[in-house]
């Protein structure tokens, strides 16, 4: 086995929303910046860049993660899902539809992070109580809505999937 060496840049391969990408990146490039600048996928937002606001949440290998707290090199070989991969063509994902129906966004800055967190939440708790929804989304900040309609939207999807 070749000995691992320290490097300043590295070539990585990732699958994002089902599409394969290969890029050379400086090792300090944050995954969020890689997604936005290198791949041009700008639905993933950056609010705080230190893990507090949740705007940059994406799904990596099936689990929600902060893309501002990962380096792009760490995603080498990973399967990523961003908001761009949520809708099925022109058909919105049930969570997107529920956000629309329940007026769960105003400026929209936080929305992509909330949606990706909600995807993971419903994956882990298909039938969440209101309290579980509140806990599950507690890592995402919204400065507009007051959260009530966001909770309602996620509840609506959880109820749909039960009926």
């Amino acid at each position, binding site marked *: *086995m070749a*000995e*691992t*060496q*320290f*490097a*300043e840049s*590295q070539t990585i391969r990732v699958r994002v929303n089902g599409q394969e990408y290969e890029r050379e990146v*400086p*090792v*300090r490039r*944050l995954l969020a*910046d890689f997604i936005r600048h290198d791949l041009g996928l700008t639905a993933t937002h950056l609010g705080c*860049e*230190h*893990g507090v606001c*949740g705007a940059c*949440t994406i799904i990596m290998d099936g*689990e*929600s*993660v*902060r893309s*501002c*707290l*990962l*380096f792009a*090199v*760490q995603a080498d070989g990973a399967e990523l899902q961003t908001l761009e991969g949520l809708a099925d063509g022109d058909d919105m994902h049930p969570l997107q539809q529920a956000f629309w129906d329940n007026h769960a966004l105003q400026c929209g800055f936080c929305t992509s992070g909330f949606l990706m*967190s909600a995807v*993971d*939440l419903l994956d*882990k708790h298909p039938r969440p109580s209101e309290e579980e929804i*509140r*806990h*599950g989304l*507690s*890592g*995402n900040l919204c400065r507009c809505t007051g959260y009530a309609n966001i909770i309602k939207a996620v509840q609506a999807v959880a109820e749909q999937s039960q009926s």
Partner: protein
Amino acid sequence: MKPAPFKYARPDSVDEALALLQAGGDEAKVLAGGQSFVPLLNLRMASVESIVDLNRLDDLAYIKRDNDTLRIGAMTRHRQIEVSDEIRAAQPLLCRAAAEVGHLAIRNRGTIGGSLVHADPAAEWPLVAAVLDAQCVLRSQDNSRTIAAREFFLAPLMTAIEPNEILCEVRFPVAPVGAVWGFQELCRRPGDFAIVAIACQLTLDDGGTCSTASLAVGGAHSTPLHVAEVEPIISGSQGEAAVMTAAAEKAAAAVDPSGDVHGSADYRRRMVKVLTQRALKEAWAQKRKRALQ
């Protein structure tokens, strides 16, 4: 906000990681879940010359039970502990504490080893490690040593680990027969760091009399504080209100909190008393609940 430039290596084995860390000298650091380290880099409150990424080390991510000892690899994520049936059966206090660490996306990435080495005095893992008398297994390229968690934490964000060492494993005693526990945390919102947190484990006989007791405080001292002085107060008792009050006063007298925007020193000290009483009550209530089952 971008981290200052650094060099990066992603080894495939602990031995390789230790060699890289040694080669990097004082200016090299390991990266675990990145949930504390990367914010510091992004804010440029920290910078490093080289980073050794532990995330591909499957030999550091495991949960094993050897008789009366639970062995948890340092790279085990908070979330894996939260949902582990094996841990729930052997030491449920760990699952309870894990659920309180940050938010889902933080728990998906952050590791028990990273939290212990980061040594935030308000964090859940240092508190639980102190109350259960956990042992930390450290390795460097040519040495391996085990240190008690109660001696590992030296000051806020400061532990006894050396720059060339990696924390490889944390060992917790399996809960003994008759064990009950309490865990109380005060924070503004779920997922926030504790303002004050208390954890305790007692062993009770069939009649509810306490034979051993351990209690620790988080968030109200420079390190998680195991308050040994409460054991003689609680041992031999049946959880009478006066005993709990005496123990809570002892705990409040033992801490030396500092104040910040989340709570003054005086408030924290008072909360140590309140939460100690609640944690002890919770523990005895567990006993009664079990008796009914």
